[in-house]
């Protein structure tokens, strides 16, 4: 029953995330590397160009998980952010080290500073399903800090922004942050040069 495993392995080796692993060194420990090498991501011809300042965020349906295994609820993004100034940041994966150790915590820490700059809501998006997003929100302390964890499971938002990491199996979002006022992007922070360009301090500095 080997079937398609070989061609699949070939496809997957050229696609999406390639995680570099470094062997443990006993004298000077190196943190295990899990950096996502975006340059090796398959450049599928995206249907949409990359989002930019001035774009209006689309009316897409995202899902929000509920506590205690209650059924996830759908949320229309355009409705949610109408008449508000919001920060939206996206991560490739819930529970992954970079997202969990740096990107998300930076927004938890910066919550009050962002509020002082008029940011009414902070939204975290990933293409994980709503159950995983809710669990991550709980486990990370992000939900308690008031951050909304929204699932873009079918990558509709991610693709609309031209920020997908395409894959044969599961589309992920590139890492980014943005500020939108009444649905219009006023600031956009890409991770193309380095991940830290998308963390909260960079966002605050621009506001």
């Amino acid at each position, binding site marked *: 029953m080997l079937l398609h495993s070989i061609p699949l392995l070939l496809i997957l080796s050229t696609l999406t995330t390639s995680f570099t692993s470094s062997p*443990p060194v006993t004298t000077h420990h190196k943190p295990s590397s899990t950096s996502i090498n975006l340059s090796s991501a398959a450049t599928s011809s995206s249907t949409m160009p990359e989002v930019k300042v001035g774009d209006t965020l689309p009316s897409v349906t995202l899902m929000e998980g509920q506590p205690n295994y209650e059924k996830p609820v759908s949320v229309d993004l355009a409705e949610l952010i109408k008449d508000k100034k919001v920060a939206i940041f996206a991560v490739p994966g819930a529970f992954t080290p970079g997202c969990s150790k740096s990107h998300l915590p930076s927004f938890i820490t910066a919550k009050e500073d962002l509020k002082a700059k008029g940011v009414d809501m902070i939204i975290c998006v990933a293409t994980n399903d709503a*159950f995983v997003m809710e669990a991550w929100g709980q486990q990370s302390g992000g939900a308690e800090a008031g951050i909304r964890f929204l699932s873009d499971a079918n990558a509709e938002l991610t693709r609309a922004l031209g920020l997908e990491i395409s894959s044969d*199996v599961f589309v992920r979002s590139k890492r980014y942050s943005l500020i939108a006022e009444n649905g219009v992007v006023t600031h956009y922070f890409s991770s193309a040069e380095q991940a830290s360009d998308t963390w909260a301090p960079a966002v605050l500095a621009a506001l």
Partner: protein
Amino acid sequence: FITKPMSLETAWSTPIKEGATVPSVTFKTRVRIESDDQNPFDWKDLTSEDYFKGKRVVLFALPGAFTPTCSSTHVPGYDAAYDEIKGLGIDEVYCLSVNDAFVMRQWGLNLGLSEDKTVGANGFVKVKLIPDGAALFTRGMGMSTLWTSERGFGERSWRYSAVIDDMKVEKLFIEGGGITQNSGPDPFEVSDANTMVKYLNSCAK
């Protein structure tokens, strides 16, 4: 290539038969390493052979980490029955899902499974979690299911359980008698731990 809506090849959703050999694939797992770092894990490739060769094991697969049935009943049932199962001629109990290694580990912790903190360990003390994040094994088993319109999952494993003896499928319990794409119901009747224990007892006689 142009991204297009996912459709599954028929073979990926045509369940393997008893007597057949499980697919040989590589899983991307995270294993504990010697380190003071806050994140003392690194990547480790494990193959089907690493998991299944030369052993008689129980495997159960489910649609998703952190989802209600999987979390409240399916995994806890097997973890509670783990010792009993091992006493019935079984070397290991695996739980597989189309989720990545990060999500799988966090789910195990969230469920209260005892973590095995020795370097190089396979994650948890009792039921071992297998991250089939790229769905390679699931496709090779013919258990691939799209669960998009109903649950926002994309491609996942259909729920089933199996006894696998030295890479060969000895016994298979498939929910609902077969795969339904974008299924409304998520049946859970034959792949549970109690049914498995009954079967293993009937073999032991």
